[in-house]
């Protein structure tokens, strides 16, 4: 219970100190010439989730190899030309900072190049040192992943499910408002400013976690869901439902005939049911076989609205566009459960 309630920051703190202890202990037994490379790698790869750690570790190792090779080549080209040497070292620092916030892999690439030049400046650089740098980085990465997986692990897959459920809750609000809006006289969707902003933020969070989860899936190879594909589907679903909410404001008040109200209510109920099943899909960890989606007859409503006398052809087309977006959303449900 106590462990379950630990905050992520405490978990990360414990992971970092244990990973570092492992590297320090190992370096006292093995003749690691530059153990500090392993230490700094272990420290920098401690990440919010196991998936993120795996992603960063693979990028760190790959880019250390690539950056080391490129850096060594550049060093041999420039070692007798001080101006060129200076340009390379300053440029590598420039690019580390440039990519620091936007791309971990490119930052690591340039970081390794700058290490090559720094070492060359202070002591010397050769192919043996490059090999040492690579295997020490692998040792550091191993301990970062090991502690991330063993010591109070935080799995991205769990985060993904929570994040998807939160996004679907926002989409339920979109659907609810969409059907309410159809019968409103004055339609001003400024009231949804906050809802739109929340959806954008929630979706981007989901996409980020989905990317990270892919790495856990790759490592565990047992998760039936493909997070990247799911993110694409959820993006499309979000797009069609929010576009439908935008279109609804262009449509005049829907006729309040009992039959139409009944049909629209049933449509809304079915969509909400599918969203609720989608939530279960995530909460049950992607056991798609157990959950079936409702095939909603969206186009059934069209003929009823075609005959509304007070509506112009333009109104009907707007309504048709609304239904088109809803049927696209419906198709996404089908895709989702077929994943």
């Amino acid at each position, binding site marked *: 219970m106590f462990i379950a309630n630990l*905050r992520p*920051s*405490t978990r*990360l*703190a*414990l*992971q*970092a*100190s244990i990973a*570092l*202890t492992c590297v*320090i202990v190992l370096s006292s037994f093995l003749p690691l010439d530059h153990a*500090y490379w392993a*230490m*700094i790698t272990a*420290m*920098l790869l*401690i990440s919010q989730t196991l998936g993120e750690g795996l992603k960063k570790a693979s990028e760190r190792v790959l880019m250390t190899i690539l950056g080391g090779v490129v850096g060594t080549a550049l060093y041999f080209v420039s070692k007798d030309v001080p101006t060129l040497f200076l340009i390379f070292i*300053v440029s590598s*620092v*420039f*690019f580390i*900072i*440039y*990519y*620091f*916030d*936007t*791309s971990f*892999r*490119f930052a690591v690439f340039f970081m390794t190049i700058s290490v090559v030049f*720094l070492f060359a400046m*202070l002591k010397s650089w050769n192919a043996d040192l490059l090999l040492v740098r690579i295997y020490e980085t692998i040792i550091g990465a191993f301990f970062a992943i090991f502690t991330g997986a063993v010591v109070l692990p935080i799995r991205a897959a769990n985060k993904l499910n929570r994040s998807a459920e939160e996004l679907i809750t926002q989409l339920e609000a979109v659907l609810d408002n969409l059907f309410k809006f159809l019968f409103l006289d004055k339609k001003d969707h*400024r009231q949804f*400013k906050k809802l*739109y*902003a929340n959806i*954008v*933020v929630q979706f*981007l969070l989901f996409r980020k976690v989905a990317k990270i989860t892919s790495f856990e899936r790759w490592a565990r190879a047992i998760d039936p869901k493909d997070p990247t594909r799911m993110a694409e589907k959820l993006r499309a679903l979000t*797009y069609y439902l*929010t*576009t439908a909410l*935008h*279109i609804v404001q*262009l449509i005049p008040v829907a006729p309040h005939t009992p039959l139409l109200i009944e049909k629209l209510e049933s449509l809304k109920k079915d969509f909400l049911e599918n969203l609720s099943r989608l939530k279960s899909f995530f909460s049950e960890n992607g056991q798609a076989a157990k959950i079936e989606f409702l095939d909603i007859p969206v186009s059934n409503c069209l003929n009823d609205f075609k005959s509304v006398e007070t509506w112009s*052809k*333009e109104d009907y*087309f*707007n309504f*048709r*566009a609304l239904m*088109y*977006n809803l049927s696209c959303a419906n198709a996404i449900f089908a895709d989702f459960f077929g994943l």
Partner: protein
Amino acid sequence: MKFLDNLWVELFFSDPGYLCLKQALKTVTALLLSVAFCHFFLENLIAPPFLIIFLMQAHQGKTKKQKMFTQALAFIVFTMCFFIGVYLKAYSLLVFHSGLILLAFLAFYVQRFGERFTRFPLFAWVMYFFALILPPQNSTQLWYNFIGVLMDFPITFILYFYVFPDSNKKIFFDNFRLYYTKCRQMLLVLQSFFQKKISAADFTANMQQKLDGIRDLVLMNQSVFETVETSHADHQLALDEYYFEEYERTRGLAMAFEATKHLCAQGIGVPESLSPPILKIMDYYLVIFQSMRIDDKTYSIDCSFNAASLETALDAYKNAVLRLDLPENQLTIFWNLYLGFIQMSKVMRDKYVYR
């Protein structure tokens, strides 16, 4: 292929507001100043140049005051970490390593106190760690390190806060211009497609990339809006209004793109009667996006455009679609394109046309 595309975008288009570029330039300038100072006065020491790189990145906070506080605090913590590390390393390696582990714990533990404590505690750990790699060789070097580190603070402070300072207001105005430049670029791709100058595949890839860039910018603007300090309640309202307008316009662009993508996917050709109004509408939008401007005091948005002409072009397209004799699903896609066009200027047209 998609991986390579993403890599390309990450390499060249990951800094829409050029903030990283400015930060990198300033850091390199600070580094060169620190290196020059150490070269001429302090026996070419390299710990101070390292510290200045980290110090230049330690400025988290929403307001200028908060940023200054973070940087001052980071300077004190970095300096202490480095010199305590030097002392402990000289005392005993075991004690030094224990300190390293304790600091590693603290660097993550303090993240619970907010975003301001996510970055600089990690750098503080690195500074302590540098005592292991770059220890002063004698007491003179120790003092030189101290002087070098002390010099870093004014250099960083002046460079970060007074030379091309990061003003949220300025970022907002820069992003405003950048947003409309990107919208224009996206429209130009759309226009090229309708003029049959690019293939469907090129169109889809190019548009998706541009749309993603615009969406990232809108998201970035959302966080910038939250930090722009306005002196007047009306100005805050104008900012809110502008963000909404930006969101609505981006949605319009996405709708137009989505409709055109469906045309491509289903191999539907554009009927001859629709091409002239489509191109005309896009011409008008290109002019509108070009002329968009914002008052730097009141934040009110203005642009020069002929509302009547835009309305006429939109009506011409609408009527042409209504007159088409095509299957209903094809008509719906052309109608969706129309709705995208409407959406692009929705807030603007509400303001200027219908009032």
